[in-house]
């Protein structure tokens, strides 16, 4: 409620009718099948990234580097597809590219873990640095070795042919494979955190590293693994951003489009609860896509969607903080 109120206040300052804007966002998200499909294509990446972040957050780690991990997944997938597209059947190319994406992201994630473990670099700074490197790498690839024949432009590499796209579901321009992968990822993470020794150990590390270590838990190995797993899911996201039904089907700078950061907000809002991050990520995807309508129909910037999402998370965190402070005073 606080978030709605605050975003309404901001809209008012921009001399726009809040109700009008909200309804525009809603119709932008759900107004037609095509629009809903669009929301779905945004939902899958957020779901996958949220699943990965649930793992690192459980271990008490801030994997800001998830953006770079998405990018590296996309880079690895693209690279493999460029090599194999003319020699191997398309479905095999797609599968192998998914694996390449997974390993690219995992590699980038474990690099964050390695920097933390051996270089004493906090994962926030390590992740941030690697995000920049991944971003620069795409620019280099797009303008250099992988540039389109004849023209070198930052708009991206040569798009892949439709045979290398994930198939749509009849007319619905979103592949069920993407959504299913995302939901499977969330479900497996939920089960792993609750029902496996690995998940339990990660949660113990997140809550009290010292005690976890004294209990004989292999803290370093588990942290390393959690970065790797999160990176792998992020890498799979990168693959979807290349081959997804509504994707641009090529590698371009900023391909991660902030999905990783958005997922951080989702997981924070879900208070690290796996199941809650399913509806929340859907909601966020809807706001993101819906707000694209704002500049088209009113002279408002589409970044307003981001404002609303940010407000939502901030107000929840503030309320949570105030409540726990209040509880402590009571107790």
């Amino acid at each position, binding site marked *: 409620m606080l978030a709605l109120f605050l975003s309404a206040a901001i809209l008012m300052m921009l001399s726009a009718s809040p109700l009008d804007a909200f309804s525009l966002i809603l119709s932008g998200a759900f107004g037609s099948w095509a629009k809903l499909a669009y929301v779905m294509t945004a939902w899958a990446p957020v779901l996958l990234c949220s699943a990965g972040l649930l793992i690192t957050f459980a271990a008490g780690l801030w994997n800001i580097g998830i953006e770079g991990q998405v990018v590296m997944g996309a880079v690895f997938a693209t690279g493999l597809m460029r090599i194999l597209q003319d020699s191997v059947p398309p479905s095999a190319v797609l599968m192998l590219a998914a694996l390449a994406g997974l390993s690219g992201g995992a590699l980038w994630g474990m690099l964050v873990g390695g920097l933390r473990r051996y270089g004493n670099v906090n994962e926030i700074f390590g992740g941030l640095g690697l995000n920049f490197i991944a971003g620069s790498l795409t620019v280099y690839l797009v303008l250099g070795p992988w540039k389109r024949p004849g023209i070198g432009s930052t708009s991206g590499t040569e798009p892949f042919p439709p045979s290398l796209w994930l198939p749509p579901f009849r007319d619905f321009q979103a592949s069920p494979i993407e959504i299913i992968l995302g939901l499977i990822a969330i479900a497996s993470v939920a089960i792993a955190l609750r*029902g*496996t*020794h*690995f998940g*339990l*150990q990660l*949660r*113990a590390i997140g*809550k*009290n590293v*010292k*005690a*976890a*270590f*004294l*209990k*004989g*838990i*292999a803290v370093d190995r588990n942290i390393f693994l959690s970065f790797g797993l999160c990176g792998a899911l992020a890498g799979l996201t990168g693959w979807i951003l290349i081959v997804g039904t509504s994707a641009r089907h090529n590698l371009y700078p900023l391909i991660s489009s902030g999905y990783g950061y958005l997922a951080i907000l989702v997981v924070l809002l879900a208070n690290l609860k796996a199941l809650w991050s399913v509806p929340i990520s859907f909601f966020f995807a809807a706001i993101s896509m819906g707000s694209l309508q704002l500049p088209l129909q009113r002279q408002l910037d589409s970044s307003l969607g981001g404002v609303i999402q940010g407000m939502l998370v901030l107000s929840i965190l503030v309320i949570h903080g105030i409540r726990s402070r209040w509880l402590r005073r009571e107790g």
Partner: protein
Amino acid sequence: MNYSEHSLSFVFFLSSMKVELRDIQKYFGPVHANDGVTLTVEPGTLHGLLGENGAGKSTLMKVLSGFLSPDRGEILLDGKVVRFHSPTEAVALGVGMLHQDPLDFPALRVIDNFLLGSPREFLLDRKRHKSRLNELADRFGFRFDPEARVFDLSIGERQQLEIVRLLALGANVLILDEPTTAISAQQRENLFDALYQLTKEGKTVIFVSHKLGEVKSLCSKVTVLAHGKVTGEAATDCPTEELVKMMFGQALTVGKRCEMNLGEPILELQDLTLSDWRLEVKGLSLKVRAGEVVGFAGLEGSGQELFLRGCAGLLKPSTGRIRIAHQDMTGRPYRDFIEAGVGYMPAGRLEEGLIEGMTLAEHMALTERNPPFFIDWAMTEEKTSQRIEAFNIKGQPTTLVEGLSGGNQQRTLLSLLPPQPKLLLMEHPTRGLDMESTEYIWRLLQARTQQGTAILFTSSDPEELLDRSDHILIFFAGKVRMMDTCGASLFHLGELIGGKGFE
């Protein structure tokens, strides 16, 4: 007012300050740390405050220096009632405290540490402050390089820096809390000379210590605290026996564990040297047999923790060898020590022992060695219920550990240890527990020793040490002496803890 004149005035024109504490009461939860302490320190004197671990010395001094506020009672400086809300206010009114471990900023330079907390200046005139620092240091025979980093300094030098800083801030009363635990003999000489010099200039010094010899040689008057109360006040020419009695009471507790029915050597230490940033324990050799209980006495931070962590494999020795059950474990990782049957129980139950936000059953699942991939929750809960019963824990498998009382947390920690450890290393196993819980914990532990577990534990309660151990290791500023408990009296232990035979 011009700042430099101001600073000169309080450095060079001194006024002695009389300190009075009246009926100071301080509780920490159920623990009554100060129970109506009344104390007068005459201006310009060196006053000793003597007492055992946990007697309430540090609490009292933290109250006097504004780190803690008393639950009741008042503080008078030169006859005027004062109330501090922070150490800064206390220093502004003239009371400065030097803590056992220096509260400084190791990453900063000497000069920056010196300037911290000084009255605010927007732009620092570093040159002038440097000469001020050097001047003060010279007066007390200290020597610093203002541009050196504090972490390159020894503990003794860091104390000296802290003294100079407090003086520059205008402290007239200087409290030193156990300042000689981690410094060299030479630095101690320097420190004592400086303290004499301070009283000559009219400062009042309160010297907090458990070391009888030091207090006797340094101070003119001494107040003894025990169990949060003043148990005596004396001029320091009074005989040592009197002071020991004031510290430990008249109780005639005598060690009763005489029947030695010990097995194989479990822990063998050979010429072990352990050190951390503040202390070094050198040349330790020790043999502990199955079923033996060894207690560690001495002021906290005199090397006991180092020793336990060394035996647990958490701290690698710089020289020497560790053998556990005839197996050389020197330099092996902590997990190998666990595999070898070593159980380590840290003092901080919720800080290092248990994991806040997790249930008893989850803790149980965490202790499983070489677990399968999936957790069998039903089996884990059943196992937890069994342990809850066996260890008399008031809780359910689904209870969060922070919801348990201290005694139940301690029993939980014990219940989580492997059932047949070869060696148990415990920091303060009964600290903060009531009599009944303490008794219960020891019954559990003694049942273990019957089955051949060797136990090393630290405690700040001399009676517990005498009652429960076969041998006591007394730690004194990194040095160690061994004492047989059979027939030994509390008085004898008290003398050793106070430093007899160490110097």
